[in-house]
């Protein structure tokens, strides 16, 4: 979808939809929001809706960073300690590697 051809109000509604959608445990929507609307929010010359778009992009960026931090921490802990957790580790796992603890 080419943002060039959209009027500014529609750009704002699109950005808002993605921002609100990301709250449903969908951090990828925030990632898309940041990447897609970055030029619109910070590079393009000012227009009326740009301030709103800028806030949405910034908040999406924050949310994204939070998710990345949480997921990275959890994944590191799980990968490191799964073997030691024994039963709990096995019940949390989707596929258990064969032949290693």
């Amino acid at each position, binding site marked *: 979808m080419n943002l060039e051809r959209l009027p500014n109000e529609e750009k704002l509604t699109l950005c808002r939809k993605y921002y609100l959608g990301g709250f449903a445990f969908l951090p990828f929507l925030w990632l898309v929001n940041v990447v897609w609307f970055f030029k619109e929010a910070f590079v393009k010359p000012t227009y009326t809706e740009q301030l709103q778009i800028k806030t949405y992009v910034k908040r999406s960026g924050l949310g994204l960073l939070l998710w990345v931090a949480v997921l990275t921490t959890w994944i590191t802990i799980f990968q490191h300690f799964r073997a030691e957790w*024994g*039963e709990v580790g*096995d*019940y949390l*796992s*989707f*596929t*258990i590697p*064969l*032949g*290693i*603890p």
Partner: protein
Amino acid sequence: MKSHAMCSNMVRCLGDGNTSLQKLATSIVFFFCLSDVSCNSVEQKIYVELNNTVPCVRLLNATHQIGCQSSISGDTGVIHVLESEADLEWPLSKGPNPPYMVLLESSLFTRSIMMKMKNESNRVAGVAVVVPNTSPPEFSPHTTCPNENTGVYSDNYGPNLAHCNTTVWNPRGNGLSYEEFDFPVFSLKEDNETEFIKQCYLDHNRAVNGSAPQYPLCAMQLFSHMHAVTNTPTCMRRNDINFSINPEMVCDPLGDYNVWGSIRPYNDTVFGHKENESVVIAAARLDSRAFFWEVSTGAEGSVSGFVTLLAAAQALREVTHEAPPTRNILFAFFQGETFDYIGSSRMVYDMENGKFVIDLDNIHSVLEIGQVAVHSGTNLFLHSDPVSRRNNTVNDEVREELFSSFFVFLLVEPNVSQPLPPSSLQRFLRAQPIPGIVLADHESAFNNRYYESFYDNAANLNLTYPSDLSPEEQLEFVTDTAKSLTDVATVVARALYKQAGGNESLVNNIKADPKIVTQMLYGFLVSSNNSWFQACHKHTGRYGVLGYLGLHCFVFFCLLEPSPPEYYYLLANLTGAATNLTQSQCQKPDELPNESRQMYSYLWVQGIVPPNSTERDSFCVRASVRLTKAVSPAFELGEYASKDYSTWTESRWKFIKARIFLVASRDLEMLTLGVGVAVLFTSLLVTYFISTKADVLFSSTREPASAAY
């Protein structure tokens, strides 16, 4: 098979396009594939597959894992033929091309060398042991105190006798079978393949005058990736997890079937205590193990015992039909005794819980045949339990009976304070103080120099045949070993008859048949594909591997119904009676008035080929012989961390193979990769430049052609 895979891949790659070019290409591929061209595959030029290898596999119990493991894509190492223990420093520290694959002669397969390699296992990729045809002077990879935690002696029962404090039963044991190695250990036979490997080593890997050998070097790759890990509770839990996308079984409990038979039949549907029934149990063990997977024969360790008991059972058949003794005699053959008494603990558990035809209170006494590979003139020893003997007078009677069955051997009692050797009787004593004797050829430590090892074979029993005999003649030839085992069987049969309260005057008529003993020894130790086994069996099919527990589930499939083993058919043939039933009647005997499947087993056996015909003389045998499950009670109860019962399981694996090839140096590999990546990027760059400057390069001096796509 390789070319088919290649062909199908190529066809798939070509897709199902409709253009003429694709059709042409597809037809070429089909023609190529159908015309059965023997593809000169590159793989065959690189790798030499080793076919006669035996791996060491992983076993787990409640707390530990033992055995060997390789990585999932095999372990590769530069071959090094070890010349002496001092030479170990080459693979472990000095050698410049780690990791190494160490090739050992069997004389170097010792605990100290294996432990040193275990400690430096980042430089050792694996070990290959060359097993010769002649045995070394002694070798036992088992522990010095077999089954020390699941016997009867513990801190509550004879604490000074527990853990081999008074007698070390297997002093030659080096415990290698119970160590954990994280590299694969394979065994090779001494044949052309091994010569080829050594030649490859001499050609490429030898250090010349102290300088490092040059690449390419000869390397070996071993695949034996085991799925189970940590211990039995973990692997059984992973077996049971059923919400993962691909539920995979990772291990199986060790276990098979016990075989039991009795003089007077029991109704197979009536379990529990039987009033006024007193039974003498004669027991022997069936199984043995080795360091490597499935190669054990256990000639002295188990075959001598159960062959003696089978011969004794046959010797008692006639006299018990003429003059039945007061007590019943139950012949029990236990499977899985090596791994913490799987079979006997299961039978005792069934008796305690009313799932067996008799109860522990019905047992009068137990006579167990241990390792009895005597040579005539030497002694047999009667072992009994000192702790229960103090309170029990029945035990004295049992010993008196045996003493008075004096035949050729001098029956001697060992020191009164010596505990019982590792035997199934210990599991009976754990449940209840039952008088029992274990018959063995050793007074204290085992005489067997190869206890639970792959060298415990026919040669260990001195089973030799004159060289000019055909296999049929060898089957019938009565060896000296067979004669001495026959004498032991006669002693056992007489003692059992007297113990069961039989008619004293008929005792001296009981004699075991040496022909049967020698045929059994030949069948179990030399070749199981012989005419006598075929005659006793129900079909001339595959004969199961003896010794190691019949694991029916490994690799991808479980045999739904295991074929009953040789000893089941043998016991039926030796103690049962031939009947006139036809084959269909044999399968449904309940329709006949006098026959009942609850009391007897009916087996259709092949029979022998009479001299003047080609058809086998098959017939139906009726015998009071049964199979009972021999899986440890820990798995029935779900107590995978049990301390009382055996918890041994064996891991599963996908495939096991070995191959050798030449490897190049790491630098050459990196260089090749680097050049390849450089070529890739260069070509990308060139393509990019050409495409951006296309209008300049392919200049417009030409007429713009009306090209249509």
